[in-house]
């Protein structure tokens, strides 16, 4: 199964019934010129990219915003429209007193599959004590957490809050909690590599194409700034395919990744089986 582990459904038509809500999401997420995307068309785009399942992120910054960017109920609505193609991650604003309650409802009543947090947008460092109850609950419920790692294109989101090494306390304190530091933690990708190698519960994704074509940028990161054998031999079980849709089209990110000079077993892991482990659908080979 090919899985896109990192997508934002901010433009999908089923959650944007009117122009006012669409405009709110576009401004908050920072996709200013994009239009509404019909869900059936989104599925055709997945088909065109050869993607079986896309993991979509909720986003809740409602402590300083009139409503969640994408609420947990809206994520459930999208998943219900195509349950064989979408997996939904919840969100909860840790700055609000009812964050734990929101997350509990998302997991127990809405059956969402993980938690998404962009600490840069929340202006919270990973060692903020307000995160602890959410991390504990996710660990207890066996739900993974997708964190923005490093740079965030979302407006008002300083990168300092998402520096990969700052997540070390979470990785240590919650050893059974699977966490993803998205975007390879760029521009701190060497810190992310350290986290991948040291902590069995830390993952990353490939949603980091910020310059050049996908093929050229992946080559720059994985073959020039690293040796490609670092990926193949040291953390091939920790990297997941992610597009960061709608920042990049899924098909373009996929094409770029497939240009990397890696073994087929490594590519297969990146495109799907690592995500299955991260999502808790498959046991990790601990040997």
């Amino acid at each position, binding site marked *: 199964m090919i899985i896109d582990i990192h997508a934002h459904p901010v433009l999908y038509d089923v959650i944007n019934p009117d122009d006012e809500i669409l405009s709110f999401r576009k401004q908050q997420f920072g*996709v*200013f*010129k994009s239009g509404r995307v019909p869900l059936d*068309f989104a599925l055709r785009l997945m088909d065109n990219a050869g993607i079986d399942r896309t993991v979509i992120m909720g986003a809740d910054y409602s402590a300083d915003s009139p409503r969640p960017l994408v609420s947990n109920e809206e994520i459930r609505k999208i998943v219900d429209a195509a349950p064989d193609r979408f997996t939904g991650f919840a969100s909860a604003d840790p700055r609000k007193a009812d964050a734990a309650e929101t997350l509990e409802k998302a997991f127990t009543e809405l059956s969402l599959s993980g938690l998404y947090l962009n600490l840069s947008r929340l202006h919270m460092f990973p060692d903020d004590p307000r995160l602890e109850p959410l991390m504990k609950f996710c660990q207890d419920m066996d739900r993974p957490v997708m964190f923005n790692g490093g740079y965030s294109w979302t407006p008002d989101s300083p990168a300092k809050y998402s520096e990969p090494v700052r997540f070390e306390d979470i990785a240590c304190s919650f050893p059974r909690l699977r966490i993803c530091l998205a975007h390879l933690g760029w521009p701190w990708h060497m810190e992310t590599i350290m986290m991948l190698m040291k902590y069995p519960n830390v993952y990353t994704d490939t949603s980091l*194409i910020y*310059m050049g074509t996908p093929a050229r940028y992946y080559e720059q990161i994985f073959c020039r700034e690293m040796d490609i054998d670092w990926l193949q031999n040291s953390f091939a079980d920790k990297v997941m395919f992610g597009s960061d849709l709608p920042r990049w089209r899924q*098909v373009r990110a996929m094409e770029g990744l497939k240009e990397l000079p890696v073994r087929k077993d490594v590519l297969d892991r990146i495109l799907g089986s690592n995500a299955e482990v991260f999502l808790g659908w498959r046991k990790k080979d601990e040997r």
Partner: protein
Amino acid sequence: MNVKLYEKHIESRKEFDLILITDEVRSAVAESGIKNGMCAVITQHTTTGIIVNEGLPCVEKDIEILLERLVPHDYPYVHTHMLPSYGTCSGNSPGHLKSLIAGNHCLFPVIDGRLVLGHAQDIYFAEFDGLLRRRYYIHIMGE
């Protein structure tokens, strides 16, 4: 002079997609009621084109191969970066350049209420950056 403008919607099915629209243009001319004048077919986009050629799969394939040779998929294009005004990444420079080669419109005579085409001519909406939902105009001017 009378002027009729029709906006047509279309959905491409792949990155490079030549979509025949001859029948749509003929129908618009017939519906317009304009007997003698000109018909312009114009795309609204910058990574598409309107082209005329013979409606044969082999010709369509040769057009695709030619444009791919002139504008390769992988090349150090300048238009490959994050666009602050969009909040998304560019990366569709080949589509822009193929659009430049194809042109954004075609013109046809309208005589006695009918679109005038050569016997081998068909009209295509040319997609160079699909899949996408697209729009084009059929603009008919005359008496």
